[in-house]
């Protein structure tokens, strides 16, 4: 049954991607991309990757789509007719694709437990991580503990992306924004429902943050969900309102605070006589130390991701406000 669902969903995914090529209306292209992300999240669930599906649904279908829509508001929604010949790209793609398909025939068969990928590192994680780290969710154990250094690097990449976006677009200060209220002034239903939902979304983000050790979730997903709540607020009540709730300067401080929190856990474990990010030294009992370490670094990741996603949205949103004023 799972194989059948896999067949159907992957075929739908391929059709969605194919449709993107022929559409000239970029608004529809971005909407199709949102559908594409949701479909891939479903496929990830079907392939047992629940944490990944969670991230893809909130990031790919949520934040990416919103950012692309904001960009479309600034750059226009139709692609112009393009007179270039499609023969050469088609040829390149066909040849590359044929080579890759030929390559897949040497791949080990899908889902076989004896595949090389399942023989080396993974069995140790699966057998030892519940004892060594003490968490039921192996993905969190590997992400935060065994590969903690890698995750620190990725958090820094996310942080530097925010620096890049702010350097390119800049963030308006509150006084520079148009004084009159923007947002959906006449949509009373939307405003009431948004007011009801935003606290619930933030509550859910906190649940995802702190329940990530036991079920799917963690800092990355929680940060994105919390950012989505504030983005909803900014969309419905207008950017100036959102700025007075969470200021852009404060967000920049938060983004750097998260990275520092993560790195300082590593330094602290060095002071305690272990290696960088060796959480076992954080408490007398190694397993308890792992728990403390993972909770703190997941919090650091969550804060950074939240602040970065919201700063990026603020940067794009203030560009839209600016072009509306002109």
């Amino acid at each position, binding site marked *: 049954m799972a194989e059948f669902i896999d067949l159907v969903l992957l075929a739908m995914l391929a059709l969605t991607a194919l449709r993107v090529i022929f559409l000239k209306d970029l608004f529809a292209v971005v909407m199709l991309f949102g559908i594409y992300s949701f479909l891939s999240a479903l496929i990830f669930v079907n392939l047992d990757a629940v944490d990944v599906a969670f991230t893809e649904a909130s990031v790919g279908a949520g934040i990416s789509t919103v950012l692309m829509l904001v960009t479309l508001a600034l750059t226009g929604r139709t692609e112009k007719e393009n007179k270039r010949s499609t023969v050469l790209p088609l040829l390149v793609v066909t040849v590359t694709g044929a080579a890759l398909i030929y390559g897949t025939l040497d791949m080990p068969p899908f889902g076989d437990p004896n595949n090389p*990928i399942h023989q080396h590192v993974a069995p140790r994680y699966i057998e030892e991580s519940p004892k060594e780290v003490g968490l039921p969710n192996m993905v969190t154990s590997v992400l935060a503990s065994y590969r903690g250094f890698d995750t620190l690097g990725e958090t820094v990449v996310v942080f530097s992306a925010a620096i890049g976006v702010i350097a390119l677009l800049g963030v308006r200060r509150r006084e520079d924004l148009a004084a009159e209220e923007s947002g959906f002034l006449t949509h009373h239903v939307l405003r009431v429902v948004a007011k009801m939902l935003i606290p619930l979304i933030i509550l859910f983000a906190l649940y995802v943050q702190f329940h990530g050790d036991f079920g799917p979730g963690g800092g990355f997903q929680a940060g994105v969900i919390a950012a989505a709540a504030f983005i909803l607020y900014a969309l419905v009540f207008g950017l100036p309102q959102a700025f007075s709730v969470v200021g852009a300067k404060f967000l920049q401080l938060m983004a750097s605070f998260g990275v520092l929190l993560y790195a300082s856990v590593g330094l602290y474990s060095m002071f305690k006589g272990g290696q960088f990010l060796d959480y076992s030294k954080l408490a007398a009992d190694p397993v308890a130390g792992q728990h403390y370490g993972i909770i703190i670094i997941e919090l650091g990741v969550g804060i950074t991701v939240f602040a970065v996603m919201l700063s990026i949205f603020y940067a794009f949103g203030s560009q839209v406000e600016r072009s509306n004023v002109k």
Partner: protein
Amino acid sequence: MNLILDYYNYWIVVFLMMTGFYIVISANNLVKKIVGLNIFQTSVFMLYISMGKVTGGTAPIVVEGVTQYSNPLPHVLILTAIVVGVATTAVGLSLIVRIKRAYGTVEENEFENKDDAI
């Protein structure tokens, strides 16, 4: 039939990858190029997750009485890659916004012509 089931996921991955690649090299509009890049990126995620799947396994969260789990390692790699992916997409989109401000267009051939004129 067995051959198809064994390689179906990989073939779809190659198809998606090539669709994304085609959009990136043939589209004229920069926003559409970014969408193509994202399709390409998601196909790579799909490849990793497909390799991590074990038939008969469950999600890698410890449950009483389950012995067969899917491989958690690709999940970790892809989870972080998705968030990094959206961060880099945001940088790409903000570059597009700057290009629009500087040239007044986001169609590739148009702003290249303007570059030539200068």
